[in-house]
Each structure stands twice: as C-alpha cells, then as structure tokens.
C-alpha cells in the first residue's frame, strides 16, 4: 500500500527540500520505490538539490493540465534506480494546480510507488495546502528557533483541519523532524532543547538532524546527503528517521560527527 507523505514546515529555509531529498534517497537505499514531488511552483529547487536540474523537460503542472503524460515528466535518479522526481513548474501560474488535478496525479503515482513524498513550499497558501491535501502522514521540519516552532504549530493545526483525511474525520499521522540541532548549545541553554520543542508542539519525534557542514556540501554537489556522505551524522539521522517511518524501533539519539585526526586534516583540505 503506497504511502503519501508531505514534508512541510510553514517557515521557509528550515530544510524541507534538503530533508525531502535525503529521506527519499534513504528510503530508496533501503529498496523502497520512491517518488519525490516538488510542489513549489515558480520556485522549484528539489531538482537542483537532487542534481537533476538539467534533465527537467516536463513538470507537475504539465501533467495536471494533460500536456504531458506522467511517465514523460518523471525523472529517474542517476544513482538510485528506484528513486524518481516529479519536478515543479518554473512558470509563475500557481493557479494551474487544481485540487482535482493533484488528486489524479497522486492516485496514479500510488499505483506505481511505495512512497510518495510531497515537498511543500513555505507559507500557508495554495501550494502548501495542496501539498498536504492528500497526505496520509506528515513530516514537520522544525528548527530549534522560536519563529520556526510557531509556524510549525500553525501547520499542525492545518494538517488537522485542511487535509482530505481531516475532512473525512480521519487523521494525518504527524512526525516532527528537528533539523540544524546543536546538542551542545541546547545543553548550555542557548538553544531550545528537543524536550522544549516536543513539549510545545506535542507531536511525536521522527528524528534529530544535527547542524552539519555535510548538508551544505551535499546540496552544493546536488546529491542527497545520505548518498553523498552516507556515514556522516546528518545522513545517519535521516536513515534512522526512515527506519522509524518504516515501523522499526530505533533508539532516538543525536548522531555526532565521527572524526579522527587524519580524517579532520583530509576533510579540511577537501572542503
């Protein structure tokens, strides 16, 4: 049974697209068939983060409008054969996305994939509501920072009221993914701790992705961090998160960088 997940946050710049790419790749690395959909019409970036920007021909809006067939618009990942991307349109007419159109595309994708990850745009406008509209589960990406937590709270309220599931009286299962976390600063009282965030948002935790240079390095080269630096702390955090999504009981930890002296010297030169 295919699962539809929305990766959302309200606030921009917290790591939705990075997380969508990393989670999608991690699922595919575990043998699942995955499609990631970019819902950020006009400001697409998932293609860039996944290194597929030069292979975009057709997009989600073309499929919704019947200009292209779904298989024409799907882009297969160069590294993982069971990972696919459905890019957003770079043209500005957001209104081209209709509820019925999105519903049709998602229903079609459900027959072909195990996981459908919808990368939501920031904000609470049309793009964001459409991205969450047909989701079975939601991943709320939150930074340990007041504005991000506030916006996450708002998005949680929308997931409970504006989704197709909510309107049918069912619930969208919600998971919190805390990104850019610095355990040291949290311990010193300089940053909201995981416990603070969980107490405020009252949503189950899916994973803790530590602040790391590996994340930027991965997006620089257009490769999900779980592929580009598989043993790095953020990659392990995303892989653990995916295991939990698949129902495994994985102990919740904040992965830390494993660095030997040589490793550090080499890394500095490479970076």
């Amino acid at each position, binding site marked *: 049974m295919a699962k539809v997940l929305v990766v959302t946050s309200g606030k921009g710049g917290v790591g939705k697209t990075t997380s969508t790419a990393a989670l999608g790749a991690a699922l595919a690395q575990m043998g699942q068939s995955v499609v990631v959909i970019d819902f950020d019409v006009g400001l697409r970036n998932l293609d860039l983060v996944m290194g597929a920007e030069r292979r975009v021909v057709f997009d989600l809006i073309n499929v919704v409008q019947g200009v292209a067939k779904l298989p024409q618009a799907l882009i297969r990942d160069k590294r993982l054969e069971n990972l696919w991307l459905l890019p957003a349109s770079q043209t500005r007419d957001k209104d081209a996305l209709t509820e019925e159109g999105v519903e049709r595309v998602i229903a079609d994708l459900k027959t072909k994939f195990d996981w459908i990850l919808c990368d939501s745009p920031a904000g609470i406008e049309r793009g964001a509501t459409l991205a969450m509209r047909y989701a079975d589960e939601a991943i709320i990406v939150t930074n340990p*920072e*007041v504005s991000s*937590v*506030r916006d996450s*709270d*708002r998005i949680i*309220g929308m997931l409970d009221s504006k989704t197709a599931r909510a309107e049918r009286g069912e619930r969208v299962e919600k998971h919190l993914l805390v990104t850019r976390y610095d355990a040291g600063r*949290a311990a*010193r*009282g*300089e*940053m*909201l*701790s995981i416990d*603070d965030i969980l*107490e*405020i948002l009252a949503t189950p935790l899916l994973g803790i992705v530590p602040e790391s240079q590996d994340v930027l390095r991965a997006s620089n080269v257009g490769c999900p961090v779980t592929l580009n630096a598989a043993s790095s702390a953020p990659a392990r955090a995303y892989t653990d998160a995916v295991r939990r999504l698949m129902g495994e009981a994985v102990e919740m930890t904040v992965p830390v960088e494993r660095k030997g002296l040589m490793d550090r010297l080499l890394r500095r030169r490479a970076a």
Partner: protein
Amino acid sequence: MMNVMRLFGGRAASAPVARERLQILLSHERGRTGAPDLLEMLRSEILSVVSKHIDVDPDKVVVRMDRGKFVSMLEVDIEVPNGVQRSKMVAAT
C-alpha cells in the same frame, strides 16, 4: 551546572525565555484558530444592532479582544460623529 557556567562568564541562558514566550503566544494563537471568525461575527452583529438606531460608518466599528492570563477584555469601539442622524429605520417606526 547552569549556575556554575554562569559564574564563569557564560551568558544567561536564553532558551528558557524562548520556551516561555512560545508557550504564552501559542496558547493564545491556538484559541484563535479554533474560532477564527468570532471577532468578525461579533463586529457585524454589533454593527447591525447599533445601526438600527444610529447611522454609523461601518469602518468606524472596531472590535478587539485582549487576552490576559486570567481574564480577557472584549473592547468595542464605535465612533459616532456629533449631530448624528437617528437611523431611518427607527425614524420610520
């Protein structure tokens, strides 16, 4: 632990402040999203009752809710110009 660190020149922890501000803010905002149109509903009903008797400018009717910790204040502000006409609805009766 925290106190020891403060003694050694560490700055006061700001995370507890963030946490408290968020808790207060969100408890207010959650209430509001529960009934997003309550104030607008009050405003339009108050306006319709008042304008039965006095001509008022709809833009000059302001309804505000200030939520406090223990009690909340519903503030209704209606500007009535001097020498105002009694509403025709009343005059006709």
